[in-house]
């Protein structure tokens, strides 16, 4: 049992929904980014997957938007401790994007416009677990939330859901990305509270 902070009572317990450990509920949609928000024009936007053999699969905005898209409702968990439940998105499943990609790679290194990177096992992008999202709450995804399109991997902490996503590099080794190099966890499962390296 932890030490007690005298006089602290906290929120009424009955209001607490089922959240990962150490998270609190918010109805806002906070913005966490390491730098200025990049503005990516749609006429130069492309999403590119590069395999470990150097094979490139690329979609410009028009080709990307012609792919079948899905509406989804997911919970978001940010490592800065807020959780937002039941958020509505529209996006293209990574299953669709990876369908014709031949690879034996086990990891994906995610790259974004503006230079942000993150990393995750390829299997976490498959089987209906990840999308390239382009609408939030029925509107075009705003730049500060990652528009025109961001990765959405809701079962991991939100820093894995790279904003302004530009592509994936499929690799045999797990290569730490931006926050992973700055002390955050290599995998980032909110239910196991994997916030920082070594958690």
């Amino acid at each position: 049992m932890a030490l007690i902070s005298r006089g602290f009572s906290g929120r009424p317990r009955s209001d607490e929904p089922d959240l990962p450990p150490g998270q609190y509920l918010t109805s806002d949609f906070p913005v966490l980014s390491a730098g200025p928000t990049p503005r990516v024009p749609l006429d130069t936007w492309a999403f590119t997957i590069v395999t470990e053999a150097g094979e490139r699969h690329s979609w410009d905005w028009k080709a990307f938007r012609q792919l079948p898209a899905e509406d989804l409702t997911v919970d978001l968990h940010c490592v800065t401790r807020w959780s937002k439940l039941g958020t509505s998105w529209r996006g293209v499943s990574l299953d669709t994007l990876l369908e014709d990609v031949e690879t034996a790679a086990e990891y994906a290194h995610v790259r974004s416009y503006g230079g942000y990177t993150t990393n995750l096992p390829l299997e976490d992008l498959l089987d209906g677990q990840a999308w390239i999202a382009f609408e939030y709450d029925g509107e075009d995804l705003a730049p500060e939330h990652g528009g025109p399109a961001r990765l959405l991997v809701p079962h991991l902490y939100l820093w894995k859901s790279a904003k302004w996503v530009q592509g994936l590099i499929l690799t045999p080794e797990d290569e730490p990305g931006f926050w992973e190099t700055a002390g955050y966890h290599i995998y980032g499962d909110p239910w196991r509270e994997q916030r920082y390296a070594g958690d």
Partner: protein
Amino acid sequence: MRWQPAEVSAVHAETQSARTLTLRVEGWAGHLPGQHVDVRLTAADGYTATRSYSISSAPAEGELEITVDEVRGGEVSPYLVRDAAPGDAVEVRGPLGGWFVWSPDSIRPLQLVAGGSGIAPLMSMLRARAAAGSTAPARLLYSVRRPGAAIFAAELERLAAPGSGLEVTYAYTRAVPPGWPRPAGRVDARLLAEAAWPADRSPDVYVCGPTGFVETAADLLVAAGHSATDVRTERFGPTGSTS
């Protein structure tokens, strides 16, 4: 990283809504200016709530300070700002964050841009700069609603004494002091051009404040020619837009 017991050793009111708490932590090895710490409160029934707070003090062994602005209706900040008293116990984990940090060894010009309580991690940088005798020329552009809302105003005046290499410029968004040369208003391109290092000096830039403030300030800095990779940001609070 493990949780460590911490004792509130002092509290100090900064403004009507902000307060600095000094936390004594056995074995605390110090921090890098700009880093934050997780603070965990535990109720008598075992319920816990955790939030992250920027460290506002200069790095020191065994002790750190956080400066907390009360969020109305919040769960943790009202307790820290109103209720916590010397001798009370909390737990901390940190120091955390390896990106929004400044090293007193840097000789590049330092440009700090703060909105409201976003001054906290930037104050740690300025205190560390003074403590280390750094000669990196520094400028702080500090946006507050009105004169009384500025946290650390008296200390900033001392830190910016002639010969210090630090210049502090205030932007008042709602009400200005008597005789102030500019009308109340938000930070804009003109003020930035007057008060901030130009891009060709290649400053290290740190921007911290509410989301809308940081979005605007970072966009203005990039538009003024600063490289996006030199502009480090820390945002807090809601987006201010819909939802």
